[in-house]
């Protein structure tokens, strides 16, 4: 309004002065004009996004399954230093806030992301920073563990994106039209891969080099290969193998618990990118979970193999592991390549590892 008023005033002055100062007045339009254009452009983009989201929502309500559609914005994301941005965000949100300001900031966060503040274990004033508030613990009994001994519980608060049984090919569907292999998610040195390869060797009774030897060479091939050739063992299904993908919204409780009683035998840290992992990103960015920074825990439970991959996202790339507090993720990289081999640790004593009970806290997603 002030801009329009200014335009009217200037036009009036120009007309009364006979147009002599039109050039200098013309320059004064540039800044507000550019601001106006930017606001209009951002408004248009936001309106278009809302329109797209509405269309998608309508399609989903009609039962249509959303398909993978790579777009330019996703390509643009690859150029951004998302790891550095996330670290900066972590430092910013790690700054101690004045006590009087804390409840206001945390309530605003809770309003924006639908967090339940009543479940927080401590009064809001006691969380020194937003980062600390983000990984807050909950009051006792807020998350009762289901009493059925024959059930596998959810390790996190979140939304179920995908689940099912792993069939031949061992592929997990990211979204309709795009899948990734389990071995590229967990690592080629996964016990799952090794066991499957051993099964193949036993069946064919052919003497080959050991799987571990092969794995040392193949990590980079898997990281750089196109999705079609990522699966190194497409012909070896393991029966009774299931998967479940759970997405945590920014306002959710961000600690990870043990889904069953199990022994964690190994940990693998994949230093990767930090793309967003929201619903839109799953539709537009290929290999999202395979490329992002993640920590994989592997072990055994009473029914066999168990693995859990905690996958970071933009601004939430700092994964804290309570069974290994020294582990640090999203650290500055010296190499430019994103496809480094994972850093692996076998927990002692070998074959036993770290024993966890159902419901035990294992890890947390931190800002940074």
């Amino acid at each position, binding site marked *: 309004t002030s801009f329009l008023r200014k335009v009217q005033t200037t036009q009036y002055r120009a007309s009364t002065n006979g147009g002599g100062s039109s050039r200098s007045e013309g320059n004064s339009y540039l800044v507000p004009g550019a601001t106006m254009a930017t606001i209009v452009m951002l408004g248009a983009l936001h309106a278009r996004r809302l329109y797209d989201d509405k269309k998608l929502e309508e399609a989903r309500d009609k039962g249509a399954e959303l398909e993978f559609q790579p777009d330019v914005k996703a390509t643009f994301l690859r150029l951004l230093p998302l790891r550095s941005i996330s670290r900066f965000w972590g430092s910013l949100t790690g700054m101690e806030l004045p006590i009087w300001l804390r409840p206001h900031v945390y309530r605003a966060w809770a309003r924006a992301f639908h967090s339940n503040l009543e479940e927080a274990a401590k009064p809001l004033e006691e969380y020194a920073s937003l980062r600390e508030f983000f990984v807050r613990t909950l009051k006792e009994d807020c998350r009762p563990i289901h009493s059925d001994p024959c059930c596998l519980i*959810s390790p996190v608060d979140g939304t179920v994106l995908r689940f099912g049984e792993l069939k031949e090919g061992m592929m997990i569907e990211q979204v309709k039209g795009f899948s990734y292999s389990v071995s590229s998610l967990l690592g080629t040195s996964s016990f799952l891969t090794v066991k499957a390869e051993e099964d193949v060797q036993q069946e064919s009774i052919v003497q080959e080099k050991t799987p571990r030897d092969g794995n040392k060479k193949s990590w980079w091939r898997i990281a750089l290969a196109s999705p079609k050739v990522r699966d190194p063992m497409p012909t070896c299904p393991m029966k009774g193998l299931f998967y479940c993908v759970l997405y945590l919204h920014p306002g959710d409780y961000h600690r990870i618990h043990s889904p069953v009683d199990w022994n964690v035998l190994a940990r693998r840290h994949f230093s990767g990118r930090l793309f967003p992992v929201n619903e839109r990103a799953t539709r537009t960015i290929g290999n999202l979970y395979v490329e992002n920074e993640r920590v994989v825990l592997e072990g055994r439970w009473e029914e066999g193999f168990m693995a859990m991959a905690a996958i970071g996202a933009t601004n939430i790339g700092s994964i804290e592991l309570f069974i290994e507090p020294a582990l640090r993720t999203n650290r500055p990289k010296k190499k430019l390549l994103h496809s480094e081999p994972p850093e692996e640790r076998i927990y002692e004593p070998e074959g036993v590892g770290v024993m966890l009970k159902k419901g035990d806290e294992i890890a947390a997603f931190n800002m940074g």
Partner: protein
Amino acid sequence: STVVLVFQAPIPKLAGDKSASSEFKFSVGRGDRIRVGEPLGRWCDS
């Protein structure tokens, strides 16, 4: 953030019965909200 679970779960005792589905059943649906401690799935106790 995202968590992916990969796990083995009980399978039918009948060897060679390829038509039988696994005994483990998920108790959630796609898009469901779930919280820590709530069952993701269960199997029959042998």
